[in-house]
């Protein structure tokens, strides 16, 4: 099951002939660390340091924005009573089922008209406006927070705003952690967004750079490509190792009630 991954990781220490001929063996005959040096150089004079920095920047900002905006919206839908709430909630569920590819082209045209292509803004901006999947997941979680807490705080003079910051947010922590992890993965792995909206090598993310790195020369340097591929998965693995427990719990509760 994880064989392809192991093959990639060990492949990053082999040269081309070793990868192609001794394909089945996992142990590299010679540990060729220079693959990493060659890979890190990137292409067109831009190193992978730049690509990693771009990816981190886009991913961290987007993740942070998603958490804040989705928590606010979830609070509004789950805890406050007002006219129009049900309608908006229904609309949100609809957007969850709406295939993202359908919106790709018109959204691109709009950004293009606003002069925001090429730039990173189209990749980040939507995250400040909430992501339906996470709003829904946070709402499910909030349903488990006793309403009595809100009411007690209200009697003690808390406003709807301070109930959110003092009661809901601290109790929402497990759900927030799940959101952080999943959003981080999605954004880190995102390919089509950067493909469409970025055009300068200096602004490329790791995923675009990997694809171009594989295409850039007629005879692909597999060792270097695998070494950079391996590096690109490290942030994902690290987060997984640290938060594994939250992730499995979070996904299972959010999925179950769907």
């Amino acid at each position: 099951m994880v064989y392809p991954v192991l093959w990639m990781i060990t492949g990053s220490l082999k040269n081309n002939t070793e990868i192609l001929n001794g394909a089945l063996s996992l142990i590299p005959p010679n540990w060729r660390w220079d693959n990493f040096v060659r890979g890190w150089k990137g292409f067109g004079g831009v190193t992978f340091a730049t690509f990693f920095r771009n990816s981190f920047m886009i991913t961290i900002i987007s993740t942070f924005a998603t958490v804040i905006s989705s928590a606010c919206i979830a609070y509004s839908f789950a805890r406050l009573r007002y006219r129009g709430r049900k309608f908006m909630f229904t609309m949100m569920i609809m957007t969850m089922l709406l295939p993202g590819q359908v919106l790709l082209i018109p959204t691109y045209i709009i950004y293009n008209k606003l002069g925001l292509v090429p730039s990173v803004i189209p990749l980040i901006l939507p995250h400040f406006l909430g992501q339906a999947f996470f709003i829904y997941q946070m709402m499910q979680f909030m349903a488990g927070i006793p309403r009595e807490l809100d009411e007690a705080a209200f009697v003690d003079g808390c406003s709807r705003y301070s109930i959110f910051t003092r009661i809901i947010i601290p109790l929402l922590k497990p759900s927030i952690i799940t959101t952080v992890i999943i959003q981080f993965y999605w954004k880190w792995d995102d390919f089509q967004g950067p493909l469409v909206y970025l055009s300068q090598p200096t602004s490329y993310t790791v995923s675009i750079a990997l694809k171009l790195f594989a295409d850039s020369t007629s005879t692909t340097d597999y060792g270097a490509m695998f070494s950079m591929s391996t590096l690109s998965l490290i942030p994902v693995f690290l987060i997984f190792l640290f938060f594994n427990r939250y992730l499995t719990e979070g996904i299972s509760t959010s999925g179950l009630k769907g």
Partner: protein
Amino acid sequence: MKKGKSSDSKQVLKVRRFIYNETTAGYIFALPFIIGFLGFTIVPIVSSFYYSFTDYSLIDKKSWVGLDNYVKLMGDKRFWNSVYVTFKYVITSVPLKLIFALFIAMIMTRKTRLTGFYRSLYYVPSLIGGSIAVTLVWKELFSRRGLINQMLGMLGIDRVSWFGDQRMALIPLILLTVWQFGSSMIIFAAGLKQIPTTYYEAAKIDGANRIKSFFKITLPCLSPVILYNLVMQTISAFMTFTQAFVITSGGPNDATNFYALYMYNNAFTYRNMGYASAMSWIMLVVISIVTLVIFKSSKYWVFSEADK
């Protein structure tokens, strides 16, 4: 002087009362959604409907062409091919993935000491399956002299030109999708844990074997979770883009030219925004119908709590 101050404070009080009103707070907290929904869902959908009736290359002025784009699509062989390829891919990859995910989930939920570790291990594929790194590795695994062909060679089977043969090219892509079973598996596992063990015990006393209790207890109790996974995976399978773009570029001879890929190429390679917008709309309608059919059919095979 005094009077002014009191009317000021009255004003302040009014503003405060307005701000602290539940409705106001509700809309303020929902504001990101309202902006996002209007700006990033409604406006794009409506404008793409409009663009689908125009000839638009982003640079030249757009011109109204009426139903031309749709008429052209109906006569476009590559369009029909992409529809056919996508349906073939959805129909094979989604059930395979779900069956595989359910199978692994059932093994996982058996109580063993290794379960926690194994579950983490099995989650790895879906964790990184969507990444370009794995997609590139996949391409090498199935290359002419790649791992898969060497393994086939050991079994005495001739090398297969996976990406050179029209009949074969879809298979590696389907296998990659199936390999990304992790998130469905975890949702299944959570669903399995919810089934009371007393059901199985009662069935055992009544003389049901494992296979029977799987079909009579496991599947019905799990049906809401199956519905959720089915809808989500179907929608995402219809939108598959990256794998085909990176691994096969749609080839050979359009054998893996998925709908989303053909749409992308129309928009960004051939700069035919109007044509691509028409394709988006057709995709929206088709996926809506498919989702609706799944939901409608669920009446017959999904058991809700009330029925139990």
